[in-house]
């Protein structure tokens, strides 16, 4: 079973985010593997393991040749990676990003399953999975909270507004996974050492046969016109519980007439 997992390398979410003057996300610090993608990597590794053959291939897009996040996923056990890195990519819309990912995934031979996160932790457009499936001509099941493969059928529990649906689809297919679908493993020391020599195929947009006008700001079809600080919500009273804090809460609720 061959699985392709899309992974994004993002600025550490623990650091406060910032925008560059052109309103793209500031990405000049160290980039890490988006935690949202670690679940797809883990699912892929487990499915390959269970099938007894095949491998996990990572596909990533980054404007500056960044590989540190990819190395983390390779250290978890992925076999190899394709990194599309090109300055022309900066400012890409979700559709342009999906076009780049789709062109890269088409280079992976014999892919049975494509896994993505539901949404990235930095941009969270949450639409790349569906766009990618459409570009690849694949059926898709998004928002998977549980996934298993039975022969050539994928069985997914898909989160819905009110609960979940059991969904079945034949391979090849694309599935987007939620956080919590599995517990991602920590890379072992052996894995980290092995990852250093695993192949990362670095490509440009031109290598993929895409026109530079289709990606980045040029191909975005959208333009950021402003970025302003949101109205701040002021913090109110903060007290340390001395055993009677519940009385404060009751008084607060009373005053709001909800009790």
């Amino acid at each position: 079973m061959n699985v392709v997992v899309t992974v994004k390398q993002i600025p550490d979410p623990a650091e406060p985010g910032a925008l560059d003057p052109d309103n793209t996300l500031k990405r000049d610090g160290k980039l890490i593997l988006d935690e949202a993608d670690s679940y797809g990597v883990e699912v892929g590794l487990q499915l390959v393991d269970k099938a007894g053959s095949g491998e996990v291939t990572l596909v990533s897009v980054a404007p500056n040749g960044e590989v540190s996040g990819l190395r983390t996923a390779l250290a978890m056990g992925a076999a190899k990676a394709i990194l599309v890195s090109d300055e022309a990519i900066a400012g890409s819309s979700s559709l342009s990003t999906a076009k780049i990912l789709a062109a890269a995934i088409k280079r992976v031979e014999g892919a049975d399953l494509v896994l993505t996160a539901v949404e990235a932790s930095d941009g969270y457009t949450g639409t790349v999975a569906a766009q990618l499936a459409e570009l690849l001509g694949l059926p898709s099941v998004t928002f998977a909270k549980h996934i298993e493969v039975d022969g050539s059928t994928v069985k997914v529990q898909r989160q819905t507004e009110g609960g979940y649906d059991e969904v079945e689809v034949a391979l090849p297919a694309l599935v987007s996974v939620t956080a919590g679908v599995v517990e991602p493993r920590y890379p072992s020391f052996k894995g980290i050492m092995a990852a250093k020599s695993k192949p990362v195929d670095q490509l440009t947009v031109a290598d993929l046969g895409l026109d530079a006008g289709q990606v980045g700001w040029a191909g975005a079809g959208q333009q950021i016109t402003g970025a302003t600080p949101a109205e701040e919500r002021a913090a109110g009273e903060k007290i340390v519980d001395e055993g009677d804090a519940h009385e404060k809460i009751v008084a607060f609720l009373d005053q709001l007439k909800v009790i």
Partner: protein
Amino acid sequence: MALSRIWVHAEALEGKVATITLELLAKARELGDTVEAFYGGADADAIAATLGAHGASKVFATGDLAGALQGPPVASALAAKIEGGDAPDLILFGTTPDGRDIAGRLSVKLDRSLLTNNTDIALDGDNIVVTAPIFGGTTMVQTTFTGPGPHLVLARPKSFVAEETGGGAAAVEALAVPDLGSTGGATVTNRHIEEATGPKLDEAAVVVSGGRGLGEAGNYQLIEDLAKLLKAAPGASRAIVDAGWVPYSYQVGQTGKVVKPTVYIAAGISGATQHLVGMKGSKNIIAINKDEEAPIFGVADLGIVGDVHKVLPKLIEALKARG
């Protein structure tokens, strides 16, 4: 200026139109002259009255999808209609699982970019300008489309206020689904509803949410007990949903539900940006957390630095004593 024609993705559960759909219809009426809905499913007749009462003159309906997920059939049907020359200026979706599936596939079929996660949609002359929160809602970004329409916009729930106009039932028109080729085939074999009994999370006047600070799954009972006393809906942070303590339908936040109740009580929740995005719009926020540096205190009107295992039982007793 107004747009001449806007389509709205209608979602419904068991014959009841989703609140997000009614919110989108209200916004669409403000922005456009003609507002029409589209629906992937068999029971369009059952929801036509509600859609009409909220301003939709028509509803284009695919009919029974035989269990297929909405993305491929609805996107294909809309693309065929648009390519046939019957196109709106703007198509609105909720930032929901099915909304994202349809919008994503449609954006490829039409080769149009889309804009998601918006909390406002406005017109600047002929341009559609949308606003989306980034960095956990600390910065608002305005974006406009540069290419030709129809434009695809997804809005977050609770961004607009649903309002009835008193219109008659929307006229149901058939929306033909073309052959889906290799993209069809994902089929729902079983549905499970896991919503808590009592008030709905996104409609309740009071919401009581629990997080990792509760320590273990069994302690979520404290949240349920408190919620019952306050006639509140119980909610949760992503951490305890991922840990399997409560179902996803309880989740408040970016990837869960957006809530704006009169009172939001966060117990044992640190306040990751993920969570703040979903509850910051609450009118009053009470936070209980043992870490006085927890970000949740930055948005709390009443912050209690304390142990939820001590504060919650006393609060429950005090409320019971009041009868």
